[in-house]
């Protein structure tokens, strides 16, 4: 975990480290079936919630799992390539439109004489 690890292989290293632990592999297996709360993840492993949270953090750092707190419940879900592609696409769409609206603002600034009356 030295600075040497911060190479291009670092994400893969983190993933392997995350999956090197049987409890974490169990959590990933459970999450491939669908999203689960932290306590649902803890139940089959007879682990304390704090242990699960620690494991969860390793899994999240590795990019394999993500979690979201809604109200008092933290829901975890797998972060598969497919889903992240969808998210990437959505983010791309948003970014595309952010840039488009930047250009729209520029266009409007460049055409101040256009009264907007459509013929």
């Amino acid at each position, binding site marked *: 975990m030295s600075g040497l690890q911060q190479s291009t292989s670092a994400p893969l290293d983190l993933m*392997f480290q995350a999956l090197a632990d049987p409890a974490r592999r169990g959590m990933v297996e459970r999450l*491939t079936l669908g999203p689960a709360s932290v306590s649902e993840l803890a139940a089959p492993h007879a682990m304390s919630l704090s242990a699960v949270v620690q494991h969860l953090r390793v899994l999240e750092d590795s990019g394999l799992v993500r979690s979201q707190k809604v109200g008092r419940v933290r829901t975890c879900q797998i972060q598969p*390539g497919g889903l992240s*592609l969808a998210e990437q696409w959505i983010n791309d769409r948003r970014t595309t439109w*952010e840039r488009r609206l930047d*250009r729209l*603002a520029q266009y409007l600034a460049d055409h101040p004489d256009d009264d907007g009356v459509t013929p």
Partner: protein
Amino acid sequence: MTETLIKRTAVHATFCIERTLDASPARVFKAFADPKAKAIWFGGEETWTRGDAQMDFRVGGRERNTGKHGDVTYTFDALYWEIIPNERIIYSYEMHLNGQKISVSQTTIELAPEGKRTKLTFTEQGVFLDGFDDPKLRENGTKELMDALEASLKAAV
């Protein structure tokens, strides 16, 4: 036809962008309604070109654009559902990536005056299909990732 089975997935998402533009709603509306004006700002870092159909800006009218980004070709095929001059535009559109349908979306553009300026609210609601079953993109797909990890773990034991 692809050799592998397409895994059918549908991921839904909504995003919203708000902007205050230094122009009247009429000027902002015209930038969406006038094909010449729209062509100036709509395209950008991607090279978007007008496709085989015209931009037909009226309720029931279609608009089709093709964009190339590297070796990836997008097509945008829209249908206008509502046009209230200077106030609101609603269209739905489908997007193809290298010929494969990847999303069907609905876009609402709302314009509201704010003094001499215009508040523009852009909302897109979409469904993103089948993990974008493009052979190139599929390399990053869930199954491949999991298979690779599994194989690596087996090799490491």
